[in-house]
């Protein structure tokens, strides 16, 4: 793809991601929030793909937009909020407090990013391109797997221990309420954990 088209796609994806994440927090109905969160994940995965991280982009879609959001939706639908059930809109004080916290985090993050060593090193080399040049094999499964299982093996294994702990905890919670062992454990409880990788 030519750089012009890439920048156009990047612009569209960035705008969609920003607008939909704004809509996630401003919609009153949680179903709409969940829907826009899915749109946001999809837009972010487009950005990953533009950065030649195709595999990572699809993992973002598969795991977050595909699996985790289904579980979110499952829980929201189980509660099934209708417009009448939703709580009152929060007051001006709470809103301004939330806006202040968001502004603080935003300024901290942008300060940290703009003053990081990596950015300073890159900007000393000349203007930073919107989409950096990488080798073609950079985002393939092979490159991803080698990086994950050689360089970051310890972190990977530690994460799996964390997930295992989560599964055991959830199985324990799900089985505690049952007096007799005859009925099957609740599908929702099991589904919630095992796919949350």
């Amino acid at each position, binding site marked *: 793809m030519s750089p012009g088209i890439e920048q156009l796609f990047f612009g569209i994806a960035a705008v969609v991601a920003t607008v939909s994440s704004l809509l996630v927090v401003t919609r009153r109905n949680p179903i709409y929030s969940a829907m826009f969160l899915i749109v946001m994940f999809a837009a972010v995965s487009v950005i990953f793909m533009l950065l030649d991280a*195709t595999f990572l982009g699809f993992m973002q879609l*598969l795991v977050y*937009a*595909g699996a985790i959001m289904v579980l979110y939706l*499952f829980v929201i639908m189980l509660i099934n909020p209708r417009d009448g059930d939703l709580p009152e809109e929060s007051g001006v004080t709470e809103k301004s407090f939330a806006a202040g916290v968001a502004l603080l985090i935003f300024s901290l993050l942008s300060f940290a990013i703009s003053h990081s060593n990596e950015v300073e090193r890159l900007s000393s080399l000349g203007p930073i391109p919107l989409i950096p040049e990488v080798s073609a094999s950079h985002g393939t499964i092979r490159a991803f797997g080698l990086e994950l299982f050689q360089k970051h093996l310890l972190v990977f294994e530690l994460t799996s221990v964390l997930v295992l702990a989560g599964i055991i905890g959830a199985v324990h919670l799900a089985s505690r309420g049952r007096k007799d062992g005859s009925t099957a454990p609740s599908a929702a409880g*099991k589904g919630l954990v*095992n*796919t949350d990788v």
Partner: protein
Amino acid sequence: MTDPIYEILIAILKAVIIFAVLLQIVPLLVYFERRICAWIQDRIGPNRVGPVGLLQPLADVIKLAFKEDLTPQGADKWIYRLAPVLVYAPAVLAFTVIPVGIDLQVATFDIGVIFLFTISGFSVYGLAFGGWASNNKYSLLGGLRASAQMISYEVAMGLSIIAILMTAETVDLNEIVRQQWGAGTLGLLEWNLFQQPIAAVVFMIAAFAETNRLPFDLAECEAELIGGFHTEYTGLKFATFFMGEYVAMITMSGLMITLFLGGWSVPWVEIPTDPSIFDVALSVGFFTVKLFALLFFYIWTRWTLPRFRYDQLMRIGWKVFIPVSLANIGLTAIAGVLGWKWLIPLP
């Protein structure tokens, strides 16, 4: 091939052809379904409209198009309208990476399997949103069941695919097909169906669950839930749900053929390096024959087996299929390390 305009035109042409063919197969499939079901139940089936009832799908489409399009009171209008599209679009989109002939697919992706698996999983949102937006408790239950069922069987299906990817050492669908080619009739043993029988069985059953077909159509389940997620839908919106279900069935069958049944490769004809039109047509024909055989299997199963109970569905999903496919991955890994060709030792 050097001119980019030419390439774009070819890509658009391929997309349009595949879309049109998928759109045309659906009514044909509905007709076959009704005729085969009648045959299984010792009835006659639709045979009044046109020769042997072949125009029945057309009559059905006209009926659906002219039905009054109702939106139930209290329904969430936007999501209600969006839901059928969310079922139909992912199924069509996912089909684009399936190679239907020698290196012939709409979208060439080096990670075809993952693309297909990701996109086809999105159709669950159509069922869930449709069930929720209808403002009907049966629809909501159907949507809830659909989301729990899809997420459970997606895990089993993903794990069964992993075993295939381990032996194939690639995620390129064309390459997977090439590896399944073997000379002569004995070459059929190269199919992953025989190399990876456990994965094939788990995948097939998970495909039934993913496409909401009997014996796993718990999201519709007319005996308990009226029509499940599509209870409130009429006219063309209902038709879109319906078509989405059938296209998903075609897509899953296509993936099944590509991963386990040798894809487009013809076992008696060596894969040419520079295929002529005839070679491509032969491979497309062979793929189509397998596709219809598998679709017949879907229909046959539907009219033969009774529906599972919901707790049975979840129990076999989590307690049987997932452990079995995990064990299969372990076996495949051991066989791979020892250098065995899994299950059937071929020269």
